């Protein structure tokens, strides 16, 4: 079991060993060869022994069940023609409950209006189930096309059997099979139960993309009505019979321990039932699921749990990180940057010699803070550990990881553990670290009851898994013509790997160098160096991971070089990428991280598209504008930011982002991701950064941790670049270029270069 960010698209899990084979036995070798998902296509959707179930909201919101037939694990067709399609990957606001079923529906050939979506439980039959790394559409594209195509082929075969005609005389048209020579038609609804009994084709025909009717069309979120009426169920809305609530007092400093506690006052609070010590655990060495030492107050309802926790008296031994602080982190990072690097990750040409002969040399240092995720829905999870089983429900980005860790911690076989993801009120990477899910199971077990552990906003900020703080030093050299000939980049962070798995690894830098070491600049002399410094915080994945800090440094520095060269920043970037063939950047890392494809043509494409949309070759709108580029796992993005500056401060007026992410499933969804990423970028520059003192975050609610508010948001212009490349992601790719585009615009407007984020309070017009 590989924890952490999702495996790349060509990683395939083997089929589950516990599934019962039907008469339509399918060669396991065949299933493995064509990708594990084929197993799920073969077998009817059989719910395992444990049915965590998707109907976990309050009773009123549960829809009545109608009779329907499963065709395969992904498709079920009702007698009334309703088509239920499974969404395999958790929804965190990135739109996969809409886009992934669209893929199935396209190949199945049904009307989108007849589709209902069911959220998958955690099971290998569904293939990839992790909402991470913007991998969902990339990983599920082919398997879901085949799932839909297979179901369609089964329906056609059922019709052909019924009519006693050859299959190749049949076609489908939006929910019906047609016998072309005679014009006879049968609705899928009528054929569904027969279809499940047909032999499963090995290679069902896939549609020619030029005939797509649904993919590439704008579709509203499938849950729009549920959201607007308050009936959408989030983790914190899960309700079960006899459900108790818990609030946990956790050791405030990483690595500390519980000394003693007194629960007398807590137990006297009306509604409080019991208090339990929660021992720290690192299941299977996976820090991503590690539970802090704590004291859980279990109560009838949430308010009582919070009040009970407030009434606890707890003594902690805060341990070795008790005096961690922003000041200490920055000074440790500075010392590491002064010293020799731990690792030289990329060393092309001869950087030292090139810098020596450069006509212009320029250096800069960038300092970035830890970033909390601040999801709108506070952390929570619901678990029921009873007898020899565990059922769990909640907002989680990596349900297979949680299921594996629950099995380990509870010492249960995985098939006795059911994890049902529900809609997540934001993820941004926080819900990949599944500590909160493991903790809920431990509390349930201790309380011998179903328990929903609810984290307050304060808990959610204090015990976030932060984006690492970062310090970057860059030096570049320009030749006589102002062309860049050398670049050195030292990255200093705490290793994310260290916060995922608790064991020594050959490449602690594995998750920390993307967006810096792997960009195909085409520079003749490039060196990227890395130093890791441990910090007294729990770290985790934060929207775009290493790109979130590396791209800020690189894109800012390239802008600085452009200005040093007296060259327009757009022209500078276009010149840098050049017109060459696609390149491969090789790094001493395994898998896709070690061989990163880079297309100068696609890089130029997004830069030219955004520049055109922004009227870059014309005169400025506002006081300043900046441009930046980022590539994230095959998705290319470029952003132009326009700002204005008055004595009241800085305002970000407009953000334009061009995105090339291959075939677009749902353009409306892509636009939403661009819009959201743009606002994240503004908040990153103006507001976001957690300061640390006495071993703990200092801002514990929105009074001290500012968020971007309605009215301070810029106008956002998404530009979708047409592409027929295989689909790549859009959740993270439009983010990294936004903050540097804004600070580049600030420089353009004022001559002030922001090398530290966030900007000082009061810089932004209207900021608190």
């Amino acid at each position, binding site marked *: 079991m590989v924890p952490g960010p999702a495996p790349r698209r060509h990683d395939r899990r083997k089929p589950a060993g516990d599934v019962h084979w039907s008469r339509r036995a399918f060669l396991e070798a065949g299933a493995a060869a064509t990708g594990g998902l084929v197993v799920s296509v073969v077998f009817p959707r059989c719910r395992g022994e444990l049915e965590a179930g998707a109907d976990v909201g309050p009773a009123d919101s549960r829809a009545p069940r109608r009779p329907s037939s499963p065709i395969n694990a992904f498709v079920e067709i009702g007698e009334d023609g309703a088509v239920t399609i499974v969404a395999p990957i958790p929804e965190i606001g990135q739109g996969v409950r809409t886009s992934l079923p669209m893929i199935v529906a396209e190949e199945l050939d049904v009307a989108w209006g007849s589709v209902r979506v069911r959220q998958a439980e955690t099971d290998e039959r569904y293939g990839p189930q992790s909402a991470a790394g913007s991998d969902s559409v990339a990983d599920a594209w082919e398997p879901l096309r085949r799932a839909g195509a297979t179901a369609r082929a089964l329906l056609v075969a059922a019709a052909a059997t019924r009519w006693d005609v050859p299959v190749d005389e049949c076609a489908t048209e939006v929910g019906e099979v047609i016998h072309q020579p005679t014009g006879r038609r049968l609705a899928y609804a009528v054929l569904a139960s027969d279809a499940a009994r047909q032999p499963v084709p090995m290679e069902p025909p896939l549609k020619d993309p030029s005939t797509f009717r649904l993919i590439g069309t704008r579709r509203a979120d499938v849950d729009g009505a549920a959201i607007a009426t308050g009936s959408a169920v989030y983790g914190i809305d899960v309700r079960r019979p006899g459900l108790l609530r818990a609030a946990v007092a956790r050791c405030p400093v990483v690595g500390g321990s519980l000394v003693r506690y007194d629960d007398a006052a807590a137990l006297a609070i*009306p509604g409080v039932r019991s208090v339990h010590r929660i021992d720290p655990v690192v299941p299977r060495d996976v820090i991503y699921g590690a539970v802090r030492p704590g004291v859980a107050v279990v109560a009838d309802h949430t308010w009582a749990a919070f009040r009970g926790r407030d009434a606890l008296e707890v003594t902690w031994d805060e341990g070795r990180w008790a005096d961690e602080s922003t000041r200490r982190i920055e000074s440790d990072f500075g010392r590491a940057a002064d010293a020799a690097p731990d690792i030289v990750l990329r060393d092309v040409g001869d950087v030292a010699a090139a810098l020596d002969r450069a006509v212009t040399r320029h250096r800069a240092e960038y300092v970035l803070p830890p970033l909390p995720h601040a999801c709108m829905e506070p952390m929570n999870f619901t678990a029921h550990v009873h007898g020899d089983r565990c059922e769990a429900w909640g907002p989680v980005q990596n349900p297979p990881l949680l299921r594996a860790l629950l099995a380990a911690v509870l010492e249960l076989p995985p098939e006795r553990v059911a994890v049902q993801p529900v809609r997540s009120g934001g993820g941004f990477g926080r819900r990949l670290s599944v500590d909160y899910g493991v903790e809920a199971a431990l509390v349930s077990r201790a309380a011998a009851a179903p328990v929903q552990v609810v984290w307050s906003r304060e808990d959610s900020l204090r015990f976030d898994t932060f984006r690492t703080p970062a310090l970057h030093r860059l030096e570049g050299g320009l030749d006589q013509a102002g062309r860049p000939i050398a670049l050195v980049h030292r990255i200093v962070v705490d290793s994310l790997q260290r916060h995922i798995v608790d064991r020594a690894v050959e490449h602690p830098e594995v998750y920390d160098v993307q967006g810096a070491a792997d960009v195909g600049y085409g520079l003749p002399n490039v060196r990227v160096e890395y130093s890791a410094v441990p910090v007294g915080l729990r770290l985790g994945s934060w929207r775009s991971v290493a790109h979130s800090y590396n791209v800020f440094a690189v894109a800012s520095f390239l802008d600085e070089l452009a200005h040093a060269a007296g060259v327009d920043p757009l022209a500078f970037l276009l010149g840098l990428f050049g017109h060459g063939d696609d390149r491969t950047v090789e790094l001493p890392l395994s898998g896709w991280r070690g061989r990163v494809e880079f297309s100068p043509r696609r890089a130029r494409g997004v830069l030219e598209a955004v520049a055109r949309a922004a009227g870059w070759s014309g005169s400025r709108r506002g006081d300043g504008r900046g441009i930046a580029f980022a590539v994230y796992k095959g998705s290319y993005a470029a952003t132009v930011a326009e700002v204005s500056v008055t004595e009241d401060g800085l305002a970000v007026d407009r953000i334009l982002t061009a995105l090339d992410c291959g075939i677009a499933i749902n353009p409306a969804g892509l636009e*939403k991701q661009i819009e959201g990423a743009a606002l994240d970028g503004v908040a990153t520059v103006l507001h976001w950064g957690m300061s640390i003192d006495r071993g703990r975050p200092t801002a514990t609610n929105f009074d001290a941790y500012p968020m971007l508010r309605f009215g301070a948001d810029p106008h956002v212009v998404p530009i979708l670049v047409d592409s027929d490349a295989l689909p790549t992601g859009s959740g993270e790719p439009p983010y990294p270029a936004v903050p540097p585009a804004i600070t580049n615009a600030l420089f353009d407007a004022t001559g002030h270069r922001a090398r530290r984020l966030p900007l000082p309070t009061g810089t932004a017009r209207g900021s608190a």
Partner: protein
Amino acid sequence: MSPIDLHVNGRTRSVDLTEDTPLLWALRDGLDLTGTKYGCGIGLCGVCTVWVGGRATRACLAPIGGLGDVEIVTIEGLSESGDHPVQRAWIEADVAQCGYCQPGQILTVAALLESDPDPSVGAIEAALSGILCRCGTYGRIRRAVGRAVELYGLDDDSS
């Protein structure tokens, strides 16, 4: 401790909770009305917005002890079948990403339109700057408000 009556969405319902319990938790845990969300608990994010006595109110800051005599409306009670003009506008405009803040946004806009059916940009900003969206839907919210104003006006005209 005796049960407390609350008038919610046109019905009187009883909760077995102490007087200091915030309305937010009485709704969510006492009555299983989970459409009203918990976001910060200190009245700064607005996702707990409900109508109390017709006014947009932060349920996290309203202890139930004082609420026995007022009408409370939650997102579940805004309309019979999701067809309040603001809800229709929201669905049309495809506003939501994660959607967690949207009930608070919708109730705030609906309350604004009750008192001011054609609000100025400033009035809209004053109302909505109090509701946080982490996913960045403010631009779509703006479009939805414009559409809601149209639909609200049409509804008024036809009633």
